[in-house]
């Protein structure tokens, strides 16, 4: 592959990463990955969620150190130990969540950390001039250096961030999903800007899920799959669906149990709900999957259904209940939700396993409004045993458990509460394979139970999982939920085509 990149007559590689490997404990995130970008080139880095893109970029930006492998910048060895080293060497990351100080002005942000000073006093005029020069060079004279960044729209903020990168002398720019918060028009202008950076000899790494964008802006693409290079080539010569095939790669493994299920009464009916412009129904004894990439609006839809986010319009009927809901009411009506943000929302990690597991239903663990710790522990231990949660005791602090065990605690909360409708947002994100398999088994057992089977609404950006466990699937893309179809009518390729908007591109 290295030879293919060094075809004669083209500019030399500005940044190259060779044989980069990185493991977190037993999980191999990157296995001998190569990536090289020439000056004046936009290289798209594509791959499914969890393919290793973010890890590779963190290594490039000096936030993580590789276990092995070599990096060169402009032909000389490059081994940043901290993000600041990378910035000084001329490598800038532009993240999805913008890293600007919202209360400072445009010029203050652009020179932040590298302010021109005399005797420790910031030279404001020099700072403004430097900022103005950077903005002018990008062809955006309309942006005022004295504007407060927090008041600017996302597209302008992104521009400030790019100006900061170029003003500090960055030669390599890596953009992580830069269009996720942009309108179509702003995306077009961003592409103009990237072409300009290209002409000025910068090397750009462009990370995106969206095949249409990759086709529009990149010269070359590199595909990562399961932490390895899965292919690459010239973007212009490769059809969209071939790129998708490279991203998908393998066929579905036999990780997913599927016992005979019988869908019966309707438990949840959603009718033209906004956010999400979603209409579907969920029956007892079935798993309905919502596929979509990160940022497609799946979580907002779930939160609206569960009463955690406002419903703009449309109707939700859960069992016999209609109308507005709160999480408190939803639990009472027999619906429980698993949050995608395990540490931030799903669990109070500073509290014990027992407190987390029984948190939604302390009723019945003592007379009246009392909670007896012994009953609480007994209730928790029942699920600790059933799910094989590895902890010292029910009173162990949840933060001390591994990711997989924490997730089992979060799932066990829904079982302890004994809800009929389980809303699961990314239930297997970031957990080990053994725990994953256990959660799949559990979900399967719940919906195929002979007595009172449950209904499951499952959101995931990991498509093999959806195809493996769901009965029916709908795809969410750019904030809209598509039609629900039986799982037999989907495959990984078609899910990704719909989710990434590739169908529109080809």
């Amino acid at each position, binding site marked *: 592959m290295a030879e293919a990149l060094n075809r004669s007559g083209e500019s030399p590689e500005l940044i190259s990463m060779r044989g980069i490997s990185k493991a977190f404990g037993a999980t191999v995130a990157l296995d001998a990955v190569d990536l090289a970008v020439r000056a004046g080139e936009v290289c798209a880095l594509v791959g499914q969620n969890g393919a290793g893109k973010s890890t590779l970029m963190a290594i490039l930006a000096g936030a993580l150190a590789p276990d092995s492998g070599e990096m060169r910048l402009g032909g000389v060895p490059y081994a940043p130990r901290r993000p600041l080293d990378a910035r000084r060497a001329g490598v800038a990351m532009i993240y999805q969540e913008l890293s600007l100080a919202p209360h400072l002005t445009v010029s203050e942000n652009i020179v932040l950390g590298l302010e021109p000073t005399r005797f420790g006093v910031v030279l404001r005029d020099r700072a403004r001039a430097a900022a103005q020069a950077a903005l002018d060079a990008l062809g955006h004279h309309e942006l005022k250096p004295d504007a407060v960044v927090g008041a600017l729209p996302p597209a302008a903020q992104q521009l400030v961030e790019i100006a900061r990168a170029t003003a500090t002398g960055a030669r390599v720019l890596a953009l992580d999903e830069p269009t996720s918060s942009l309108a179509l028009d702003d995306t077009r202008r961003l592409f103009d800007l990237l072409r300009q950076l290209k002409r000025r000899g910068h090397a750009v790494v462009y990370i995106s899920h969206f095949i249409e964008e990759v086709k529009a802006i990149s010269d070359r693409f590199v595909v990562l799959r399961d932490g390895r290079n899965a292919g690459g080539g010239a973007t212009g010569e490769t059809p969209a669906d071939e790129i998708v095939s490279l991203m998908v790669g393998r066929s579905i493994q036999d990780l997913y149990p599927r016992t005979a299920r019988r869908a019966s009464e309707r438990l949840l009916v959603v009718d033209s709900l906004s956010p999400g412009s979603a209409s579907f129904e969920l029956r007892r004894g079935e798993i309905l999957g919502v596929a979509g990439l990160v940022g497609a609006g799946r979580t907002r839809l779930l939160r609206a259904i569960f009463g955690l986010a406002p419903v703009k319009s449309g109707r939700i009927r859960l069992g016999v209940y209609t109308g507005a809901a709160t999480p*408190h009411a939803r*639990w009472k009506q027999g619906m429980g939700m698993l949050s995608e943000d395990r540490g931030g*929302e799903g669990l109070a990690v*500073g509290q014990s396993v027992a407190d987390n597991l029984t948190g939604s239903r302390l009723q019945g663990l003592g007379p009246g409004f009392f909670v007896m710790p012994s009953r609480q522990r007994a209730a928790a231990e029942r699920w600790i045993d059933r799910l094989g949660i590895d902890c010292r005791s029910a009173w162990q602090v949840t933060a001390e458990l591994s990711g997989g065990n924490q997730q089992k605690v979060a799932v066990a909360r829904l079982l302890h509460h004994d809800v009929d409708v389980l809303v699961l947002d990314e239930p297997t994100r970031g957990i080990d394979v053994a725990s994953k398999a256990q959660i799949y088994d559990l979900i399967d057992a719940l919906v195929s139970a002979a007595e009172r089977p449950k209904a499951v609404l499952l959101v995931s950006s990991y498509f093999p999982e959806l195809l493996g466990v769901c009965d029916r699937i709908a795809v969410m893309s750019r904030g809209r939920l598509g039609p629900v179809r039986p799982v037999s009518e989907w495959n990984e390729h078609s899910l990704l085509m719909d989710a990434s908007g590739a169908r529109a591109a080809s």
Partner: protein
Amino acid sequence: MTWRRFLQESGLGVLIGLAVVALIFGALIGPQFFRAANLELMARQTVIVCVAALGMTMVIISGGIDLSVGSVGALSTVVTALLLRAGAGPAIAALGAVGAAAACGAVNGLLITQLRVVPFIVTLGTMLLARGAAKGLADERRVEAPMTWLNSLLRTAQDGRGLILPGGIWITVIVAVLVALTLRYTRFGRHLFAIGSNERTARLCGVRINWCKWGVYTISGALAGLAGVLLFSQLSVGDPTVSVGLELDVIAAVIIGGGSFSGGRGSVIGTMAGAAIMAIIQVGCSQQGLPNWVQQIVTGTIIVAAVALDRWRQATGAQAS
């Protein structure tokens, strides 16, 4: 295991700290420092802080703060005196004062949950509001009131036997037990820990956060009112200018006792020990003949040291596991 959890939750560190501080002053002053009469003196010194700190413990566990307790306490002394002067019985006067204080707390709770303003700001505002109301009601003067049994709440029992403590101390002990049981054995108590530990998780779990917060600030107000009744007992007048800065002593007791400003942690035993440490320093310094400024420096050092020590212990604990 349960023992371990008990010690973890109640803060073993603060109990050791209490023992160390007591031994130091015991060594300096001699065995008479531990005589029953002296211990009772210290207990009487600390009950007012203690009662208010019990409410503050609940507030801080839920991740909040209540700066209005000092002013609400002063308001409570004024209301007690005014009711007594108007001819009400002592029990009615005390209940009225506690009720008025609870109403102040309820207002705090409403503002915090409905206006979504942070507790620090809301209670900073009501701190001034309650102080102003107290001064207005009292016409900016001390309010004289007839003597009743309320005045003897903190007086040493007449027969002089050491075991029979003043009524105010018994009230404090009973309230402490009730608060401890509430925190540990009721849904409301467990929900307060959940909210303080991670409010988003509590919301996801269907905890009615607004109700809980409203309740906890009302309780904090009521207990500040009870502290005010005890204060009235000490002063035997209603005084709208007393207990300025009481909230800081109260917060210090909770923090020394292992409470965390980020919520989710704190205990009744810890808070009581924290209040006791401050009382020992106060009484010990004055009996040793040390000036007030020494006492303040020692207390200030202990507050910072207690929190720093706790941080260090947690950090090493997290690494060990």
